[in-house]
């Protein structure tokens, strides 16, 4: 059961963080970063399968599949921004976390412009 392993890693690192928190807090933060990396490595194969399913579905649809790459890029940007922002929130630096979130939103807006233009063209084409 994959979920048991994920919860196990989370609880073990939580206990280690608790023991480290009194003497030196920076190690607690480093352990939380390492634990989140490990958990991502565990769910990585499942993400790959989910993306494969997404691509199969888009292949069935006759419409152009160029936007699937963009959607995957946006998901990756969102995930990395959230990863960094949560670490900053854990460390108590919510100002830096909000800046990272802002950067993520800006990047997502930029990468999603082709989709917007495609939608607008589609609407113009439909309008009589």
């Amino acid at each position: 059961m994959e979920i048991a392993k994920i919860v196990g890693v989370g609880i073990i690192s939580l206990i280690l963080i608790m023991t480290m928190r009194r003497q030196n807090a920076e190690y607690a933060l480093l352990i939380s970063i390492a634990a989140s990396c490990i958990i991502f490595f565990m769910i990585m194969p499942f993400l790959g399968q989910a993306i494969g399913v997404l691509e199969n579905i888009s292949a069935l649809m006759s419409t152009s599949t160029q936007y699937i790459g963009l959607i995957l890029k946006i998901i990756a940007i969102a995930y990395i921004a959230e990863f960094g922002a949560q670490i900053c929130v854990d460390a108590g630096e919510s100002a830096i976390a909000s800046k990272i979130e802002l950067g993520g939103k800006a990047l997502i807006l930029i990468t999603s412009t082709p989709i917007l233009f495609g939608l607008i063209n589609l609407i113009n084409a439909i309008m009589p």
Partner: protein
Amino acid sequence: MDIQVVFQIAAVGILVAVLDQVLKRAGREEQAMMTTLAGLIVVLFWIIQYISQLFNNIQTVFKL
């Protein structure tokens, strides 16, 4: 299973904390500071390797 990294970091952290106390009791404040910094740098190197590996994996998974 790559949970050893978490255990290694915790081991270095505890070791540095103990060394810190011992050196402080022995009256060598600056060596205590040096050991904490050295331990922190070592752990930072491990973590940076892990984060770069994470970002490479993200790129391969999301086919960027």
